[in-house]
């Protein structure tokens, strides 16, 4: 069974990789990349050469191109020692048109062209754009020189997959720092150094806290291995996709913390999330310097609410539980009273859910719930248990209809099996036969869907979350598509792909556990 499962997992991962590749082709090659600027307020303010350069910079961020400005090329030469600081200024000041370049600049531009003027790279030199015959530049009209290339699909896929899992090591920090290494402590300094709370702190790593405990589920957290699904540019500017999905939302939630300098404060800063930011202490404000002793100053904040995934999963899992609670007894009842009133009523309900557009019945549930006095919108600031009621019901009732449809079908099929007649002849009551024999056999195909129902609750429900204004994960994909945020699209596709592949495999495993007749051996 182990080997078979391994084979299934590998094949599943392969298909996820192919899916990510296809989606990359779709979003990076299928879409017109000018659309990125369709609703960009900064873009419309840019003019002349400045606009071309801004486009290149944005495209590099969104992952369309590799873009190297001439000055950046020169800076790498300075770093490698081929160019001194004084020579750099001479080389970097290229003139308005090529024929007016100083010999020093011309020499380095030639070298730059030599390095980059081979396919697929392209070197672009934009001459100065001046106001009429005067010597003044138009806005954004300074001369520009840069090289760029389109990133090929396979290269992009490879780059993405190799950077997917980030393992934190003490060699992460490139700058010269002292005392690289990990330290273990029984008493976490964040809590003032008194309270018992083991933690592993790193120096030279990306995260300061590599292992720590707090009062949030699952209580022990690690930062050794983090997922990197890509970076978002439009949906939540500059933060990682995974962080967008998992970081708490809502208003700040302050608590008493002890900063590394020993200062105690009532603040929402989450010191456990501290990340390295080169030179941040030196260039920071006075308050920052009063709080921190090293460059691990990039902290997130504690928030009142759950994360996007958190809300979606909470609502989803409650709905899944409720739908099984409703569907199993009702389906049993329908099957036992076949072609009688309960069956007729249940079947009409199933037809209603199957046929009517989901939008219609969700609004119907909302209207009914609203008239009963239940809250119809989600409020993160004033959380109450009641606000979960309508979203959960709106998700659970349709899911229950689907479950009832299949479970009733399987039950009815089993009822005409030979073993039922035999058990009846053996003197068992119909109640016993239903509970002990028919139900156990009929529920096996239903069991297969449980992992999928649980795991796919993480992806959120688009309409339900929109209708009840739930800050969940359901509308992240649509928002990303509308904002052409390719990083988020690809990251989400990878996440959803892994979820659906693993839910199918888990379903098979669960089915073979429930029914010993099913073997996963080949």
């Amino acid at each position, binding site marked *: 069974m182990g080997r078979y499962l391994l084979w299934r997992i590998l094949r599943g991962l392969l298909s996820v990789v192919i899916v990510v590749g296809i989606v990359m082709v779709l979003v990076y090659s299928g879409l017109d990349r000018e659309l990125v600027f369709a609703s960009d307020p900064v873009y419309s303010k840019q003019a002349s050469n400045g606009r071309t350069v801004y486009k290149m910079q944005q495209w590099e961020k969104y992952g369309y191109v590799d873009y190297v400005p001439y000055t950046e090329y020169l800076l790498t030469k300075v770093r490698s020692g081929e160019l001194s600081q004084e020579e750099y200024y001479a080389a970097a000041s290229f003139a308005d048109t090529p024929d007016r370049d100083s010999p020093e600049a011309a020499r380095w531009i030639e070298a730059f062209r030599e390095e980059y003027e081979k396919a697929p790279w392209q070197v672009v030199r934009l001459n100065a754009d001046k106001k009429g015959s005067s010597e003044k530049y138009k806005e954004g009209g300074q001369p520009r020189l840069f090289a760029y290339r389109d990133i090929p699909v396979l290269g992009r896929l490879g780059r993405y997959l190799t950077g997917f899992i980030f393992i934190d090591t003490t060699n992460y920090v490139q700058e010269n720092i002292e005392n690289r290494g990990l330290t273990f402590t029984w008493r976490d300094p964040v809590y003032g150094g008194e309270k018992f709370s083991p933690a592993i702190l790193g120096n030279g790593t990306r995260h300061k806290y590599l292992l720590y405990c707090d009062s949030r589920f699952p209580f022990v957290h690690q930062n050794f291995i983090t997922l990197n699904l890509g970076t978002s540019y439009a949906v939540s500017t500059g933060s990682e996709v995974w962080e967008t999905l998992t970081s708490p939302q809502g208003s700040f939630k302050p608590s008493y913390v002890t900063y590394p300098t020993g200062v105690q404060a009532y603040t929402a800063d989450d010191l456990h999330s501290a990340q390295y930011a080169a030179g941040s202490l030196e260039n920071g404000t006075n308050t920052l310097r009063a709080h921190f002793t090293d460059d691990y100053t990039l902290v997130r904040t504690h928030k009142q609410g759950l994360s996007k995934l958190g809300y979606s999963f909470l609502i989803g899992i409650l709905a899944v539980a409720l739908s099984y609670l409703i569907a199993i007894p009702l389906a049993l009842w329908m099957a036992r009273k076949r072609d009688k009133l309960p069956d007729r009523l249940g079947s009409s309900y199933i*037809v209603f859910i199957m046929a009517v557009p989901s939008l219609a019945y969700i609004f119907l549930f909302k209207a009914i719930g609203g008239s009963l006095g239940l809250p119809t919108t989600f409020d993160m600031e004033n959380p109450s248990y009641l606000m979960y009621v309508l979203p959960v019901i709106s998700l659970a009732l349709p899911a229950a209809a689907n479950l009832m449809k299949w479970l009733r079908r399987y039950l009815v099929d089993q009822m005409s099996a030979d073993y039922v007649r035999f058990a009846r002849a053996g003197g068992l009551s119909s109640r016993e036969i239903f509970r002990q024999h028919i139900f156990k056999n009929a529920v096996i195909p239903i069991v297969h869907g449980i992992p999928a129902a649980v795991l796919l609750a993480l992806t959120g429900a688009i309409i339900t979350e929109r209708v009840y204004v739930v800050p969940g994960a359901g509308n992240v994909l649509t928002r990303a598509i509308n904002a052409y945020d390719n990083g988020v699209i690809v990251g989400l596709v990878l996440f959803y792909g892994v979820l659906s592949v693993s839910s199918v495999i888990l379903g098979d495993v669960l089915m073979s556990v429930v029914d010993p007749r099913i073997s996963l051996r080949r």
Partner: protein
Amino acid sequence: MNDQELFSFVEINSLETEQITAPRYSYWQSVLRTFFRRKINIAVLILLGVVLIFTYVYPALIGYDPAVDPYINLLDPTAKHLSPKGAMEKFGYNIHWILGTGASGQSTFDAVWYGAGISVSLALLCGLINLTVGVAVGAIWGFSRRVDAVMTEVYNIASNIPYILLISVVVLVLSASFFSMVFALTVTGWLAVAYFIRTQVMIIRDREYNLASRCLGTPLWRVAFRNILPFMTSVIVTLAAAEIPAYISYEVFLSYIGMGLSEMSLGRLIESAQSAMVTPGWGFEFWSPVAVASVITVVLYVVGQNLGDASDPRTHI
């Protein structure tokens, strides 16, 4: 006739003894007979007829065109967002006003049926394409193990590409027109149908009568299309019954999240009336397209399901 004539021996006719006299059985006649045996089916069929007349005949009859709606009253603010009662009092008792007026003073009733025409056409076309391609591919897929290995991987991959993403890319690359939407909905949509048919084919492909057929030298495609597909008529009809309402619902869903058609379909109507729903007294504008969409889908679904039941030969006895 006297007794002599009545009780005489009949000659043995060897030709007639070879004839098998069974009641004449015509499959489709039996399907119809079973279908009409239930009175509710007649009622639902009449309802379907009415719905189809309103979706296709009514807008053509009044020559409805959403761009030059004759009842648009942009200049008259008192003509907008009227309830049925208000509209009828204002404009007279006429079929146009039984659902009130919309945001630009147009007749909701006319707009809803025009939109229904677009939505139903979209669903029918998508259903037709998906079922034709899906059934043909599924029949081969279920039969050949080599095709199975390839197609299962294709299915695993295609089913993991989010539908919304695919649709929005197609819409952005082509346009949000009717036919690009049909293309977007069917480009991977047939795979689900094919997968379902594949499973059904696998269940019955190794039955004895197919084995016998193969032993007698029937080519594989003939077994697939003549022995197995007729066996699955009821399954296919049931599938079609679920498919077409599902596409209407999906169109409504896509328009609601802002990725739908550019034409004034039911989904677009619902989406544009969303803001009216929260305003007290304007709710009718939102609920009427929702209700019409629900009636259409329920009627189509029930007719299809019952036709599917009737086309199962086991119900013919």
